[in-house]
């Protein structure tokens, strides 16, 4: 497991499903998914369940204000601090799945809104994400974490249900700070949940339909789409803190912005975890690749690697989920690889998983005129552990016969399969991607079938 590149929960448990096939964002084990729960998506969702959850979140948040206004400042501050981080869901941009709570000062600043803004004092929030536009140091990750903390109980049930559907193993584990909606109190409970094998901490799943890169109501959008239209004189454009101060004193203007966003709710869509490039862009990238000279003049090798990386991640989606690019040095040469999770979502992928023990698939990129024996040796040395005995070299031209024979010998001697794909195959893959008649991954399958037919029996 330690060797897997960007391991996900299902890779650790050897469960063959792809991101496309499941309802939740598959959590990464050692870093966060760079997406956030947008409470607005719950508000606008056609599902009554989501709407009710949004109401519960807003009510719970407003309850903190109620406590703050009714001489229970300490309790409300503590509660707000507790809700400000929900690391079990693993959303955000942390590189180690660990986040920090807000400080007391920021918590008081937020709760003071209930005291100082008359409209909020009277009616509370409808979209509590507005706090991003009212208090400094509050951004998308905070609103996402607050929302998740208030509905943690629901997320536990959801996670259990998904685990049962997809046979994900669960452990009985203690989970802290579950919000009790009836008592408005936090408590800990022992429940069945999947755990992170790296540190035995509980993991919660979040439905994909709630996730966005940026919340619908956010500071950047507010500034660009709303404020900058009213303030035309560049000298008078306020800085962030001044604008937040202004908002606190002119909440009605902010309410107008929120109403505007509510009216545009139909445009608010969740962001997919991976978005393939459009066909037109694939075509353009192919042309760029074909026009690139081989070798490393004018950094063409780097350009080649970047283009192939973008193309492959999209062409092979959704059968193969892209994991990462990785650089390594072998005999003083820098090599860049593309790594995909092998989820056995296609017949031949299952084949290579079973036969070559390939849990992740490695593509080595070589912008050279002619592939050499040394290149084959480099990938051969690399094929071990999670990659099993299967690897792909992407290069520009058809390999000479002796090199192809070399790969066949590698199969005869060590039962390792190295496929060599060239510009020709890339063209075919893009054509299939455009034509929509067959899957681009079939080209890799074709090479694999050709290879197995040429292998001595």
């Amino acid at each position, binding site marked *: 497991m330690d060797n897997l590149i960007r391991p996900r929960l299902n890779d650790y448990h050897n469960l063959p499903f792809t991101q496309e096939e499941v309802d939740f964002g598959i959590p990464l084990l050692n870093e966060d998914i760079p997406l956030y729960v947008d409470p607005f998506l719950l508000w606008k969702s056609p599902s009554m369940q989501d709407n009710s959850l949004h109401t519960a979140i807003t009510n719970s948040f407003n309850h903190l204000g109620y406590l703050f206004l009714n001489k229970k400042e300490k309790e409300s501050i503590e509660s707000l601090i507790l809700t400000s981080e929900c690391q079990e869901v693993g959303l955000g941009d942390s590189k180690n799945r660990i986040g920090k709570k807000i400080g007391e000062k920021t918590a008081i600043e937020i709760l003071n809104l209930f005291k100082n803004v008359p409209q909020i004092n009277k009616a509370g929030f409808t979209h509590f994400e507005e706090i991003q536009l009212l208090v400094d140091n509050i951004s998308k990750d905070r609103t996402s974490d607050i929302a998740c903390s208030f509905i943690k109980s629901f997320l536990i049930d959801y996670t259990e249900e998904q685990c049962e559907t997809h046979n994900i193993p669960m452990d009985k584990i203690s989970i802290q700070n579950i919000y009790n909606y009836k008592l408005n109190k936090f408590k800990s409970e022992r429940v069945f949940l999947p755990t992170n094998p790296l540190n035995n901490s509980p993991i919660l799943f979040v439905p994909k339909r709630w996730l966005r890169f940026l919340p619908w109501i956010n500071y950047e959008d507010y500034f660009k789409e709303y404020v900058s239209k009213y303030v035309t004189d560049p000298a008078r454009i306020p800085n962030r803190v001044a604008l937040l101060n202004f908002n606190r004193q002119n909440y009605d203007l902010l309410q107008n912005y929120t109403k505007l966003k509510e009216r545009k709710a139909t445009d608010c869509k969740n962001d997919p975890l991976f978005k393939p490039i459009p066909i037109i862009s694939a075509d353009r990238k192919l042309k760029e690749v074909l026009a690139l000279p081989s070798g490393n003049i004018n950094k063409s090798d780097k350009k080649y690697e970047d283009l192939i990386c973008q193309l492959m991640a999209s062409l092979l989606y959704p059968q193969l989920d892209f994991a990462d690019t990785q650089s390594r040095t072998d005999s003083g040469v820098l090599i860049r690889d593309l790594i995909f999770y092998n989820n056995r979502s296609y017949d031949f992928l299952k084949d290579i998983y079973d036969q070559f023990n390939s849990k992740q698939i490695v593509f080595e990129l070589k912008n050279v005129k002619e592939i050499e024996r040394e290149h084959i040796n480099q990938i051969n040395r690399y094929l071990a552990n999670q990659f099993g005995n299967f690897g792909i070299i992407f290069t520009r031209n058809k390999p000479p016969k002796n090199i192809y024979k070399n790969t066949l010998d590698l199969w005869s001697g060590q039962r390792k399969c190295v496929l060599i794909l060239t510009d020709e195959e890339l063209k075919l893959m893009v*054509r*299939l991607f455009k*034509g929509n*008649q*067959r899957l681009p991954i*079939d*080209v890799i399958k*074709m090479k694999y*079938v*050709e290879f197995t037919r040429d292998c001595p029996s």
Partner: protein
Amino acid sequence: MAKKKVIPQNLPANAEVIKFEMLEKLINSSFIEMKEFSKKKPDDPLNKFKVTSINRILEPIKKLLENEPTSSFLDLLDEDTIPSYSDSILIISQFQSAMRQFKNTFHGRTSKYGDDRWFTQENPGTHYNPEDEL
């Protein structure tokens, strides 16, 4: 002395002939359709459905012609190698030629003024040869 008539070996059965005629119609219409596609985009790949449905026709033909000398030239479409429309046209036309060869061998008239008919196991026969009458 009249020469002894040579009856062709491996005559098809009546049932096989009926099957042959049915398959002939199917393959001819597939050929016409594929040719239209091929004119437009000869290098475009066939999708899996087309490959399977063409193979469904080619397979029984290959079986019917297995004892013929042409059989070694007949290959089905290989789904794994992503055949293009022009590939499929080539394969289908080879099958059509093999079928013509089969028909030429086992179909014809047995006498000078007779009608064309199939020479089958149930109703054997040979092609009319004017020299036989000499």
